[in-house]
Every structure is written in C-alpha cells, then in structure tokens.
C-alpha cells in the first residue's frame, strides 16, 4: 500500500529544504504554472473534505474563487487544525511531523481562490504541533516560492500561525472564523457560509489539515494517480484514527474504502484480549454505531452513508465485549454537554438532561419511562443548534439505543441496592 501522507520520506518535520528535496514544492510549481487548472484537477481527483463533512473540495474552492476580492484585506484561507474530538488524532500527526504538505496545500488553495492571508489555525494543547508549525511557517516566509505566489496574487501573502482556544467547539468553521478574529469560538448560523463572508466579512476558504495535505500530491502526480489509490469508487488514501479495544491502535493510512474488517483485524492487530468485536463508533463519538454485522462495510463517505452512518473524521473507536456501550455513550454525551458553547439552551440544557438520565441509569437509579424520555429528546433536539454538536450527541444516543437497547434495559432492571425490582413487568 502506498503511504502518501505518512511515508517515511515526507516525515521531515519543519525542515523545508528536506521537504523540497523529496519532491516538495512540485505541486506548487505546477499550480503556479497553470493556476486556472488547479480547481479542475482537484475536481477530477474527487477530493472531499476530510475534517468530517465530506463536502467536495473543488466546490468549496470554486465558491470562494467566484467571490469578488474585497476592497480591503483580501480573501482568507484557514487551515483547520483544531482537532479536539475524542478518538481523532490525525491532524496533530500531520502538523507536528510533516507540516509542509499541509502548508503547500494551503498555498495552492490561496492561489486557486485569490487569497492574501493563510492562517494555520492550531489547537494550543498540541505543543509540538504549535512549535513545529511556527518553525515551518517561518521557513516558508523566507523562501522564494512564497514570493512567487505573492507575485502571482498581486499582493503580499501572509502565512500566520494562530493558536485557537483549545475548545472542541472551535473546530466548527464559523467558530474557527470567530476565533481567528480574536473572539470566543461561538458558532453562528449558516448561511452566510465562510465562503461568502468569513474573517472580517471577507470570503474565507476553510479546509481541514488532512484535506490540504493531499493537495500538493494531487497537483504533482495528477488526478488519475490520486483516484487509483482508493478502492472501488472511492479515491485517495485516508488517515484512519483507530482506537479502543484493539491490539494496535494508532494512525493507519489506508486506501479510502478499506473495509472495517481489514482495518481492525488486518492492520489493527485484531481485538484486544481476544474479546469479540461488539461495535465501532464510526467517525468518532458524534455518529452512529456499526456492529459486527457491518464488518465488511467499506470505510468511505458514500458506502457509510448508504449504511446509515458517516465517515466523519475517519476515527474508528472499537468496542469489544466487556466494554459497556451504555457507559461509553454516557461518556460521550457528557463530553458534548461539557463542550457546548452555551449559546443555544436546547443544546446545553438538552445534552445535560440526556447526560443526567444516562447517569442515573448507569448508577442503578434508572426509572420506567427513561428510555422513552431519551428517545423523545433524541427526536426533538436535532436541528436546533447553531452548529452540529447537538445533532452529534442526539445521533450517538439514538444509535446506541437502537443497536444496544438490551444493555439499557438490563441496567434499568438492575438496582443499586440489590433489591429485586418489584415493579418489573
């Protein structure tokens, strides 16, 4: 399997010369030579947003490119490295071990849309990533390639490292914009999308770190090459963050569309302590669970959507027999409740109320009607937040109830005092 983003050769850290020596800069030069071909190449490659949404990258780039250049300040590119969700750890790897792929991708993006500021938006908790990124940015600032980009754009081109708030909610694109502008990362209602009105109201291109990282390779090797890396109809490679009850958790770069079975058993070393495979939190804690019946599903955007799930960030949190789905769900809902920014009471209060009910079921104090109350909340809350946090919490809740209702019922039947449940039907 061809490692692209994680190849030994490209893990040069902030050393720009080393990056250029292994083929770095090639994609950027192609872009400078034929700027009007950038977006078509991205389109032909089929690159999609790898931060979770899976939105076709070329459409976002085209939308920003089509916006008129603002009179003051120019357009913006934000490279989103906020990564703060349990189970996802790909962006910090890219930023701390091979930042130049990302930066070069962002530069190509700036050329495509006509931006004059690139913000490398990074989570301050990732000290190594912050340090390396700053060194990497400094190296580019002194390099002639950057000057060539500025010359093409007809304006100075800034490359800034901006530390975010370290909060989960800062990963949402409108929140990222607010954070870059110096404020609290509050998500806001869309439309308007950052593509039309982002930083200081200017058109802003926002993509995830991993998405940008593929771009220089695509420009240098071509769309066909990129498509061929994937399995079936899927394209390119994917950094799967594998964690949970497996023998070899960690980052696994695989062809997009690798099956769940392959990922867990062939590359992940199989289940820990010979426990049977029970479930996987697909795409992280804000999506649906898949079970043993789904082991052969291809882990790509479309195949998972057909299965009623989502790829998300490509995080796969594996759960074996012996791990409680109820407890994990309670843990994740509590995470969402704690990380809700507070603007929308249905989100803050709703997630806390769900967490409360789960907690008492967990502690042997669940009552008749609790499961119905949970289902009611999972139906009435989605769609009511300024961002997707609430929907994510509702999705993981209703998915776990659907797939593992027996676990909930068993916990309800158990009472902490050990008394027999006199009211059991």
């Amino acid at each position, binding site marked *: 399997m061809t490692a692209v983003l994680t190849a030994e050769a490209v893990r040069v850290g902030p050393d720009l010369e080393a990056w250029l020596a292994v083929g770095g800069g090639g994609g950027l030069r192609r872009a400078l030579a034929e700027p009007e071909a950038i977006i078509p190449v991205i389109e032909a490659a089929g690159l999609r947003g790898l931060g979770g949404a899976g939105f076709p990258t070329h459409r976002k780039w085209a939308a920003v490119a089509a916006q008129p250049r603002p009179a003051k300040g120019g357009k913006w590119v934000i490279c989103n490295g906020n990564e703060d969700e349990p189970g996802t750890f790909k962006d910090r790897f890219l930023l701390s071990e091979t930042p130049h792929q990302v930066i070069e991708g962002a530069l190509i993006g700036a050329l495509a849309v006509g931006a004059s500021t690139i913000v490398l938006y990074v989570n301050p908790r990732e000290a190594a990533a912050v340090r390396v990124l700053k060194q990497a940015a400094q190296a580019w600032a002194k390099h002639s390639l950057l000057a060539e980009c500025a010359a093409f754009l007809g304006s100075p081109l800034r490359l800034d490292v901006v530390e975010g708030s370290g909060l989960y909610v800062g990963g949402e694109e409108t929140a990222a914009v607010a954070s870059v502008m110096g404020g609290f990362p509050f998500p806001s209602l869309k439309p308007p999308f950052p593509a039309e009105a982002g930083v200081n109201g200017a058109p802003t291109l926002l993509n995830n770190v991993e998405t940008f990282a593929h771009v220089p390779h695509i420009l240098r090797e071509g769309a066909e090459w990129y498509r061929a890396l994937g399995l079936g109809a899927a394209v390119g490679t994917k950094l799967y963050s594998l964690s949970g009850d497996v023998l070899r958790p960690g980052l696994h770069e695989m062809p997009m569309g690798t099956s769940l079975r392959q990922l867990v058993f062939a590359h992940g070393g199989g289940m820990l302590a010979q426990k049977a495979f029970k479930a996987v939190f697909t795409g992280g804690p804000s999506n649906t669970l898949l079970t043993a019946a789904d082991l052969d599903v291809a882990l790509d955007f479309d195949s998972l959507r057909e299965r009623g799930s989502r790829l998300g960030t490509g995080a796969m949190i594996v759960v074996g027999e012996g791990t409680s789905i109820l407890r994990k769900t309670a843990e994740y809902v509590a995470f969402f409740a704690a990380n809700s920014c507070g603007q929308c009471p249905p989100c803050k209060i709703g997630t806390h109320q769900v967490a409360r009910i789960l907690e*008492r079921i967990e502690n*042997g*104090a*669940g*009552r*008749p009607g609790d499961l119905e109350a949970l289902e009611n909340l999972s139906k009435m809350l989605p769609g009511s937040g300024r961002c997707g946090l609430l929907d994510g919490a509702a999705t993981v809740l209703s998915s776990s109830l659907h797939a593992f209702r027996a676990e909930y019922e068993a916990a309800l039947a158990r*009472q*902490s*005092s050990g*008394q027999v*449940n*006199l*009211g*059991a039907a």
Partner: protein
Amino acid sequence: MTAGIPLAQALANWRACAPAEPRPCGLPVAELLRGFHPDQRPGAMVPLLVGISAGQRAPAELAALLQADSLVDDIDLAGAPLLEADVLVIGGGGAGCVAALTAARAGARVLLVTKLRIGDSNTVMAEGGIQAAVGEDDSLQRHFEDTLRAGHFLADKSLVAALVSDGPAAIRWLIQEGMSFDLADEGRRMGGTLLRKKPGGASAARLLSYRDFTGLELMRALREAVLLQPGITLLDRHPALELLSDDRGRCAGAALHDLARGRTVLARAGATVLATGGSGRLHLLGFPTSNHYGATADGLVLAYRLGAPLREVDSFQFHPTGMAWPGHLEGQLVSESARSSGAMLVNGLGQRFVEELQPRDVVAAAILREIAEGRGILRDGRAGVFLDTPTLERGKPGILAGSLVTLSHLAHRAGIDPASEPFLIRPTLHYQNGGLVIDPAGRTPVPGLLAAGEVTGGLHGSNRMMGNALLELVAFGRRAGEAAILDARVERPRNVGLTHLADWRRALTVQGLPLSRKAPMIFPPYGNFNAATDRGKAA
C-alpha cells in the same frame, strides 16, 4: 347541577347595575356561617373513632386518612440504609427551613427531608404578606386581640401571645437572612418605614410585604440559607412514610422513602420536627384548592398515629376568591389585594351581597349562599360570582397594570381582559386552621416530636387572619428549632422501631375500621403514584 343565571344574562345584569350599590348581607354572621360555610354542612364532618383525639370531628376525607393503616411494616426496616441526626426536620417549606437553620446554627446535626424539592411548599405561593406589629399606631396587644377575634376566640392564648410577640423579631431575622421588604418610601433604606397594609379583620395596618410575592421572596432567601448552612444535610424526594418510635413512646425519627431509587431509608434522630404543611390537595368537601401539590396532610397522619392530639381539624379556611372558570385554572387564588383595593363582589342579578373586607370565612359563606340560592352565575357548567375588576379600573384607572400585576397576569392566562370583563370566582380550599396541638416551644405532647407551621393547630381558632401564616412559620420554626436541639440532647431513644403500630392496628380493628386503607397519601390521586403499591421501583 346548581340553578343559577347563565353568563350572558348575568353579564347584562351586571352592566345594567354597575357600579352596584352596597347591600347588607341580610343574615347575622353566625347564621350565615352556620348555613353556608362548608365546614358547617350537614354530614361534612364525622367524629374520629380511634386515636387520642377520638370524638373530635374532621372532614370525612381527612378522617379516613387519619384512621388508616401504616404504609410500612417492621420488616421494611430490615436492611434499610440508616442516617443519623440530632434533629430531623420533615418538610422543606418555610417552617421547615427556619427550624433547620435554627437548630443547625445552635450546633445540631440536622437532616432536612422533603418529598419534592426544598422550597416546594405553600409558603412559596403566598402573595399577600406577613403581619408584625411595627406601626407606631399599633401594638402587640392589638395584634393579639385581632388574631383572637378573627379566630372567633377559639385559639390558644399562649400560642397567640408567642406569635405576636415574636413578630418584630421575626421580621428582623428575615431581613438578616436577606429577605427584602417594601418600604413606604423606597429611597429611605436606612431609617424609613415599612410599607404596611391592613389585612381583613385587623384594627391597624400591619401587613408587611414584598410586592405581591412575599412568599417567594421569603422562600428564596431561606432556600439559599439552608443550602449554604453547614450542619444541614438536605434530602430532596424523600417523603416520610412512618414515624419511628422507641419502647417508651418517644419519637425516634422516621422511615423515609427514596423516590429516585424506590427504597426505604431510615432517619434516626433525637428530635423530629414536623413541618409538612397543609391538606388542600385532599380537596376536602369536594372543593378545588389553592394549595401546593404536596399538601396532603402527611404530617397530621403520621403524628396522630404516634399519639399526638389534634385540635380544630374541623375548621378550614376557604379563600373567598378562587378562580371558578376556566376549568384549567380552577381553584387558583385571586389575591385579596383586589378587594382591598376596592373591587366588589357581584351576583348574577348584578347585586352586591356582602361587605367585601369582612373576614374570609364570612365572605366565603356569603358567596356560597348566593350560589346555593340560585343567584350565582353559570358558565360552562361552573358556578361562581363576579369579582368586578372593570368597575375598579374605571374608578382607579391604571390600577390593574400598575399594582395588580399578578392579577392581570392571571386574567391573561384565563383569556379575559380584566378591564372589560369581571372574573368568575368561587371559594377555594386554602388553609388548614387547626392541626397538631403544640405548646409555645413547638412541642407536641409526644416526647421527641415537635411541629411548626400549617400542620399545627391552636393559633388561628376557626379562621386565620391574612399574614399570620407567614409569621407563624418564622416564629414557631425558630421556637421548634431551639426546642428540638434541647430535646435531642436530653436522652436518646432506645429500641427504635414501629412499636406504636401494634396498638394502632388493634384500635382500628376494635372499631371495625379497614386495615386495607393506607396513609399517608404522599401524592394526590391524580399524581398517579400509589404509595402503597408503587414504592418498589424508582420513580
């Protein structure tokens, strides 16, 4: 169905006659009460057959609960988790909080248990105010005499003397706990005077208030005080099922029910203070009520079973103006402040029929007389009389929006415009005048058992004055709290259990009363929780 005048006709009569002329009641007070007060209805009251107060009369619904069997048996106590305290306070309303604070500040380990949340009580719903004889033109003696007279001279003078003497100190105590009071001049916080109104039956203005939600203001301050007081352990959602006794008949605490987990918990204490409030949710005599959801006479039942005597449990206050229509607001209080501002009561013929600021029992009886004799107004199957707010507004433009804000809010929820349409009102079950016998220290005759607040008797005779209930909470909450800590130190109970139940059951059996009926009720029937059968699972 009662005869009466249909709404359209009644409105026409009202319009034709407004403003209606004053008309004398036509009946002497004693005859009016005898003929029309709900307590006096033939068959309303039955004599108690068992217990220390056998022979006393009580409403049939209450008598049934007082003479019921316990919810628990000795075996329910085996293996139940145990909590120990110096003082157990049962009830989280005003009186309970005051008692708990008093005892804790004197060094007691206090356990405060409540079946809903702390603060959920009749206290929080009180609108009018609290009486205290602070005016220059007023005196403790006048407060003393007014209270006795309003209660038809049936009250215990030593209790009333304690109540009124504690009045000014209670106000100061409340201010020190952070409760605000309206001032005559809001600009003069230091050295100004309190805003005083004259409640029905009083000879001086001594009703102190905070806006029209005095009870909420009081409860807010006390609730915070309890939450912050070291030495008080608070257990929400733990109703008391049965009092514990020792082999000398001393109260030794209570068996509680943990609603969240569906299990029994024992609370052993050197002294127990009952502050369980009233009984409105029993809907005595078939009346709607203004009371809180938890007012189901639990404390009366528990104490009576342990041998605490009762008094005036045949005397209930029916607040004259409860909402009669629409159905979903039935029983809700229309504050007396409307009448004290000048609003009149008008029957279906457009006539006034009573002096509106007479004591509540008189006004309530007069209204019921109009309805009984066919002069009431009928709307959607409900009968009542008019509270003429439109005429009030015409006479004092702006009064509804200005000072009768809660009233206007209530009208809005009823879907009427109080400036153009009168309220339809009817008496609502409001207050339990009698209750457990106590002495001025708050002690019942049962050692180790004290009580404070609406659950007690002897203060109000057969009719309570407005503003004395909130005063009672503070005055007797403090007294009971102080006495409880002394009692807790005197001697510890021994051989704690349910020894009193055997004698109780024998008494019921001898009288032929069914042991199948269980009490206390805990929640009203429409709460759909049967304390006898639903306790085994989490709720």
